[in-house]
């Protein structure tokens, strides 16, 4: 049993299914868990991770997050709509 014994059941991590459409329900549930990092956490705790490996992984994740944030900002800036002058520097 996972969280069952210590928490109110069927409240957390629960999706109500409408018209027996379980595929959508599962998709929503999986997406939620993926977004919250629960799936990653599950995979990481199956096997022991040595401290060196953990340090390396965490450092890599930090660097990757910084890079991704910067890159996202740059892309949104380039893709930005409704500019007053759409051809900046070329007219």
């Amino acid at each position, binding site marked *: 049993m996972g969280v069952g014994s210590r928490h109110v059941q069927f409240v957390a991590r629960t*999706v109500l299914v*409408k018209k027996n459409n379980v595929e959508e329900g*599962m998709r929503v549930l999986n997406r939620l868990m993926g977004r919250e990092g629960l799936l990653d956490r599950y995979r990481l*705790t199956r*096997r*022991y991770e040595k401290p060196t490996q953990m340090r390396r992984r965490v450092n890599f994740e930090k660097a990757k997050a910084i890079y991704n944030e910067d890159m996202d900002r740059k892309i949104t800036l380039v893709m930005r709509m409704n500019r007053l002058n759409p051809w900046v520097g070329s007219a």
Partner: protein
Amino acid sequence: MFVSASCRSRLPPSHFKEESVVNVVYLVSVLWKSVKMLRRVVARGLWSGHGAVRTSVELRNKEIRTHQDIAAKLLVGWRRRDELRGLHCTPSYYKTQDRKEMLASMPVKDEGTEGEVTQGLDNSLEGSGGMFPDEDTPNLLCDGVRFADLPILHARVSKNNTMLTLTDAKGMVKLYRSCGVEGFKNAKKGTNIAAQATAISLATRALNQGIKTVKVKVSGIGPGRMAAVKGLTMGGLNVVSITDDTPISFNYSQRPRKARKL
């Protein structure tokens, strides 16, 4: 009321308290003065009102040729406020309204790059109303049974197998099927097809017992995770909710197995 208030404000409070004869005389004289003033004001008001009525009647008879005559325009506008607004008296009255209209007519403001504005936690889940349980959910009626009293289907999914247990709401086991029981052996147990076949077989058995509606609890991650729940509906069961019950630890309570060597 108004007059007495004004008198009191003119007199110093100590004089008022003493109530000497002189003060009473003074008070009466002041009262008399203000009454005279009031009469004058009322008379003037009546006269001007009379004039206004006369002008308006004339204007009405002329059928309003007011293209140039601003005063007449204003007067008519004052009588029928919707048509025209006075230049000097109404701006403050209409200020909020005008601002709203102006803002509505403006183009939508460009919010700029992402990160400059606050965003919701999960935009993709917006509009998924009724998808998540609330405080009324336990009393929700599903096929005439309370949600809290529905039988539970526990699906234990692992890398190598899928095990399905049907219990009542309190956890008493009624049915059990797994890919191994179903006849899939060795590596074939850990496939989505095996999980689906198992789920269908369990669903038919449940229907034979008269159980039609269940809530599902999925535990673990593996190939059978999706297929098991899908198989239940294919077998004819009605799934009301899906709950994830995967045990996820954020710290090692017990040191896990040694990592695999690659």
